[in-house]
């Protein structure tokens, strides 16, 4: 099972190292980790996607809470959050494939952000499942590079972490 965990941390040197060290040490499997600043420049938000049962999710939450630099930890309910991930996909193609690829990108509501004689770079921001689908649809062509940001999430409505 996938759990989405939102963590507010002090924006200080060494915090990320501590947290990633903790995951490695305790054998937690992290699918994705996205980190960035927040509305407060002293606070960063880490969004984690953790694969595991409820025991693992609880252990991750507790071990994170134990960190001095961690201000808040919240396990987010999948149903109650808006999730987004950004991807860039570079596809190598022949001239006659270009039209098909552009069609796929249009349907998926992605965007072509770079083009050359032999390549196209597609950008898309959506739920991670949609990103997976885009990659799947492009896979018959020659995908040469993919960069994903990892999922970020916020609660729906007025709720905040």
């Amino acid at each position: 099972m996938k759990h989405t965990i939102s963590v507010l941390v002090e924006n200080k040197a060494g915090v990320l190292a501590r947290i990633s060290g903790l995951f490695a040490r305790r054998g937690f499997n992290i699918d994705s980790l996205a980190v960035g600043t927040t509305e407060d420049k002293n606070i960063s938000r880490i969004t984690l996607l953790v694969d595991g049962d409820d025991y693992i999710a609880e252990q991750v939450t507790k071990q994170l809470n134990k960190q001095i630099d961690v201000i808040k930890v919240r396990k987010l309910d999948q149903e109650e959050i808006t999730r987004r991930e950004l991807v860039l996909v570079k596809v190598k193609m022949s001239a006659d494939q270009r039209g098909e690829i552009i069609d796929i990108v249009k349907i998926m509501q992605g965007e072509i952000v770079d083009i050359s004689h032999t390549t196209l770079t597609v950008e898309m921001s959506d739920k991670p499942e949609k990103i997976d689908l885009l990659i799947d649809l492009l896979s018959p062509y020659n995908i040469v590079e993919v960069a994903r940001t990892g999922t970020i999430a916020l609660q729906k409505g007025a709720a905040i972490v």
Partner: protein
Amino acid sequence: MITGAEAIVRCLENEGVEYIFGYPGATVCPLYDKLTKSSIKHILVRHEQHAGHEASGYARIKKRPGVCMTTSGPGATNLITALATAYMDSVPLVAFTGQVSSELLGRDVFQEADITGAAEPFTKYSYLVKNAADLPRIIKEAFHIASTGRPGPVLIDIPVNVQTDKLDFYQPEAVDLRGYKPTIKGHAGQIKRVLRAINNAQRPVICVGGGIFAAEGQKELQQFCESINIPVVSTMMGIGAIPTAHPLYMGMLGMHGKSIANRAIIDSDLLIIIGARVSDRAVLLPANVSKNTKIVHIDIDPAEIGKNLDTFIPVVGDAKEILRQVMEEEPEKKSVEWTDALKAAREMLTLDYEPRKAGINPKAFVHLLSRTLPDDHIYCADVGQNQIWSAGNCEVRTGRFLTSGGMGTMGYSIPAAIGAKLAAPDRAVVAVCGDGSFQMQMMELATICQNNVDVKIVVMKNNKLGLVKEIQRKSYKNNESAVDLTGSPDIVAIAAAYGIPGRRIDSMDAAEEAIAQMLGNKGVYLLECVVDENEPSM
């Protein structure tokens, strides 16, 4: 304006630090230079690992963070074992390490080691100080973090230029860490659930760990178990939480524990764990806990609850506070049958205190030693067979039993005893170690002599790494590999070389008189006890 080094010394004085255990080097020279002008006493160890252990022994008795200090690079890496040992046993330390000049950081210059990185898994928190002006706040925070919540070591790594940089000394009044607010009081609803669980239980048992000492809750624990008549077992770290001769105490549990203590756990229907980690070795749990046993787990560290054992009622907070809260609810006194049966079984246990054909009986010896020592003595046990002999047979009354429980670090007992003695100069302090572990710490005899530390040292000499030999006998068809200590020096002669009086005994006939002679000696003394190499741990 003052220098960073002066600021550090002033902060340490403000914290009431009496002793620093340390070893100098180039990158802490500015600090050592200012130290001579301070009232703080510096204890020069003979190896940095022991600086950490001495600070640990001091902290556990003084109930204040112990302070140690080393230079960068090898000085700092030599400290790591002591940090890890303190971390596993939740001992509050504030460790200072020198570091290369900040503009050189990350370039692998002479004696540069990423010590905050290397020690990360073994520290509660660490700082790499970039600006001298931050020192007063950081040091205040470090003492706060080390000593509150679940205590532990905090590392402050200070580049040499930060020690010479100037600052306007300003120290904030209070510590404000928004991510660190330990819970002290138990949740009222959980306390009620604990009360109901106790009232409904037929066969309750308390399992106490080292957390009770951190909370200074020994008195409350004794009141609690006596008032409702609940038997108590302990982990190795919990030995002495109530006097070992107390009628309700069933002994240490686990792999090397008392059968009656393990029996009590297996047969119980309610297990109240207080300040214990429920680790594999010490507790032999969770395998032995029946599915019908309800578990109450009281711990200041929420991350310990539910980690190794499914918990029925978790209670996060300070053990002493929570025991008080539960007692205020006036739980029912438990039936005498269960407790009496355990007490009777305990009486039936035969103690193996018979003399041996060759050498002393180490169990009988440590028993006699602890009984001869004053009630409030501090007993420091090392690691190996000697630790098991000590843990199972040493009598703790109002004193303390100090050992490296979580890490099992050989070479802990003598430095811990030095620290403990400096923390409590009026109490008798004894270190009991093996001949292997003695050789991991014997350089500290010089520290003892230089500072006139009155500790008594007992070395159990079996000429083997006894505990490993025993494992090889049981699990590796007696194929002894690398456990023979031939080549070791004459230990009494080693002591004599330091000017330390001592003697060797090889029979229980001499034990009583030898113990009297040792305890009667003013100042440090070493007693070597010859033990047969086939003497079992249990």
